[in-house]
């Protein structure tokens, strides 16, 4: 007998031809759009399928095509391009040793940019580390984000977090955790609380397809199902989890969205590089949640075009040119082409926006750096290290703070000696 041990197949390794034959690309406009109160099982086919709106000729087609005005579409494009410009500059800042670590969202910018527009400002967001677009779309300043990356004197996290672990209570975005998937049941708990209090805001959360294997993914689905929590739960299937292909999270011949109906909540699978489609399914799920029909699990099919993080080198585990072969294209290009087709955008405007964004990123960077970097310029007071462990400093932390301050004073003296 041949062995029954199954090792998930990986389509291509370095040196091999990229192979995306496993991605079934439905034609744009094909997927039906059920009413928002459709019973859970009514979404089961959509959880297998792929909702796509933008067709090969860059037109928005089919029942999921949202009625978005050009202004809103341009806003989406703006967020995506800003995200990319920001990512690009920060990646370089890391290479230059100015920041310790960075994670880009290259290739999956539509996931955050479209969702941020589809949701209301009062809705609470629980992002993963690859949702910088949510922060940008909700208007956090570049300087604030960069200051976090620099752990400088303006850092919103007061120097306590690794780069990219932002938050914004004001803009209703939860604190990003370095521990995968923990935000998922938290989002559901937030949504439960909204429902308990009779408020109409909903929660939305994101995690990577690799992270679906964590316990908290399951906890979130269970609690969402049991209490019909008004939440939109997003799996960003960018095919890779560091070096691990999505098949190792259970994605072989099965969608991640299907786990929604499996558990008894709605499921939708969407072309994650199609801004309009992401907008449409998010709006649908948000409306469904807000109306009291419970949560939806959305799988965004996309591709992590960059390295996992600045500590990673994908050339070790996948073909260098995989992104070129990726069948769902580039989300920025696709939305741009759509706007051009509509006569609402052109190359010149695109170029000039791109330049403008680069400049504003560079300008912000100069300002952020003026607030200090890890090694130069103004620094946060190290005694901040002891704050916020508890609301008030307990005696043992007071004593430790004093001990550190004495040590630092001594260091300062010896530096001068």
């Amino acid at each position, binding site marked *: 007998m041949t062995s029954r041990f199954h090792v998930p197949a990986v389509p291509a390794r370095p040196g091999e031809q990229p192979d995306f034959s496993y991605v079934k690309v439905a034609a744009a406009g094909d997927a039906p759009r059920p009413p928002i109160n459709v019973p859970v099982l009514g979404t089961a086919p959509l959880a297998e399928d792929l909702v796509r709106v933008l067709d090969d000729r860059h037109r928005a087609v089919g029942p999921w095509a949202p009625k978005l005005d050009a202004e809103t579409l341009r806003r989406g494009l703006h967020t995506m391009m800003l995200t990319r410009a920001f990512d690009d500059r920060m990646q370089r800042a890391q290479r230059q040793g100015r920041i310790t670590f960075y994670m880009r969202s290259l290739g999956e910018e539509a996931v955050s940019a479209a969702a941020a527009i589809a949701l209301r400002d009062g809705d609470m967001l629980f992002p993963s580390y690859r949702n910088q677009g949510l922060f940008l779309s909700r208007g956090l300043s570049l300087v604030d984000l960069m200051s976090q990356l620099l752990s400088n004197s303006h850092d919103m996290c007061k120097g306590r977090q690794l780069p990219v672990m932002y938050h914004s209570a004001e803009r209703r975005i939860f604190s990003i955790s370095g*521990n995968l998937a923990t935000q998922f049941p938290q989002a559901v708990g937030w949504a439960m609380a909204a429902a308990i209090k009779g408020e109409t805001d909903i929660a939305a959360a994101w995690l990577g397809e690799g992270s679906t294997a964590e316990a908290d993914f399951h906890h979130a689905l269970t609690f969402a199902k049991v209490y019909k929590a008004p939440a939109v739960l997003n799996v960003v299937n960018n095919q890779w989890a560091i070096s691990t292909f999505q098949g190792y999270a259970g994605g072989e011949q099965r969608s991640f969205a299907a786990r929604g109906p499996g558990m008894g909540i709605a499921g939708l699978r969407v072309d994650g590089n199609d801004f309009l489609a992401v907008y449409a399914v998010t709006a649908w799920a948000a409306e469904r949640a807000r109306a009291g029909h419970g949560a939806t699990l959305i799988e965004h099919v996309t591709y992590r075009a960059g390295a996992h993080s600045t500590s990673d080198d994908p050339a070790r585990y996948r073909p260098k040119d995989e992104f070129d072969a990726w069948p769902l294209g580039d989300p920025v290009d696709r939305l741009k082409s759509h706007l051009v087709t509509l006569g609402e955008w052109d190359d010149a405007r695109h170029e000039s926006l791109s330049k403008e964004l680069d400049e504003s990123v560079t300008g912000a960077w100069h300002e952020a750096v003026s607030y200090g970097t890890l090694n130069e310029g103004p620094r946060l007071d190290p005694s901040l290290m002891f704050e916020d462990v*508890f609301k008030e400093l307990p005696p043992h932390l007071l004593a430790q703070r004093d001990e550190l301050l004495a040590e630092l004073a001594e260091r300062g003296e010896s530096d001068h000696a």
Partner: protein
Amino acid sequence: MPNMNMVQALNSAMDIMLTRDPSVVVLGEDVGYFGGVFRVTESLQKKHGAYRVLDTPIAEGGIVGAAVGMCANGLRPIAEIQFADYIYPAYDQIVSEVARLRYRSAGAFSAPLTIRTPCGGGIRGGQTHSQSPEAVFAHVSGIKTVMPSNPYDAKGMLIAAIEDDDPVIFFEPKRVYNGPFDGEPDKPAQSWAEHPKAEVPEGYYTVPIGQAAVTREGSALTIVTYGTMVHVSLAAAEALGLDAEVIDIRSMVPLDIDTIAASVSKTGRCLIAHEATRFAGFGAELSASIQEHCFWNLEAPIMRVAGWDTPYPHAFEWEYFPGKRRVMNALRRLMGEAA
């Protein structure tokens, strides 16, 4: 003042807080309609509704995860973990999220969550209904860890925990839910009825977190202890006729080292007693801290009496449990070992 056992006192604390503060909710396995397997949440759902007192799926990690999200949305959840032995599936949410949230977000978010859980042995519960895991929480920066030993403290500390803006792990020594226990299983069960600490005000009051109680004053030696072992220690000291000072630390984090150190500096001798396994247990921190504070006053080595370093065995409940005799032996050694 009415007489309450610990179950009633805890129930009263939650009832009062559910009434006073609309943001308080209770959630956990079997806590709603049924009122909890130890009946600590009895009738709370009936009184405050199924939106405030929630039966949950059996997923400790999910309970705590959802509670963190509720905190972010302005609620103040009280989560029950049915037995402390079943808290480990929630350990990641507690260590990585509950404990770190305020810190990592520089105060933008926090988790004013109370996690109640019955702990300890003496009820023939075997290894999965008898554990005392306080040490693995006390080591984690960012959570408070407490354990009351009597009805009065239980109610006052639970209200304080619920009102606390920091997360609190609230251990309830289940062996003394219904009566104090002096560590002698063969004696008839005692009830709280005659105990002074069972006189519990009906209304609101708090017992501050972070303050130890000197349960018995004395000058010959100090017993530093908590939970069920407070009662065992008192009984042992009294059986020996020792002039022991007994300190119920009540709160592991923050630890009231001043009260403890003052006592040990005075008596020069110290026994630490807890039910949890000894090795790297909370007694180790107590011993290390006391030694640091009181070294020059110590007349004998600080001793520890604790659970053996084995899982809690069903058949050997009373060989395992650090009962009165074991504490008495330790006290005798402690007094004999004078310099």
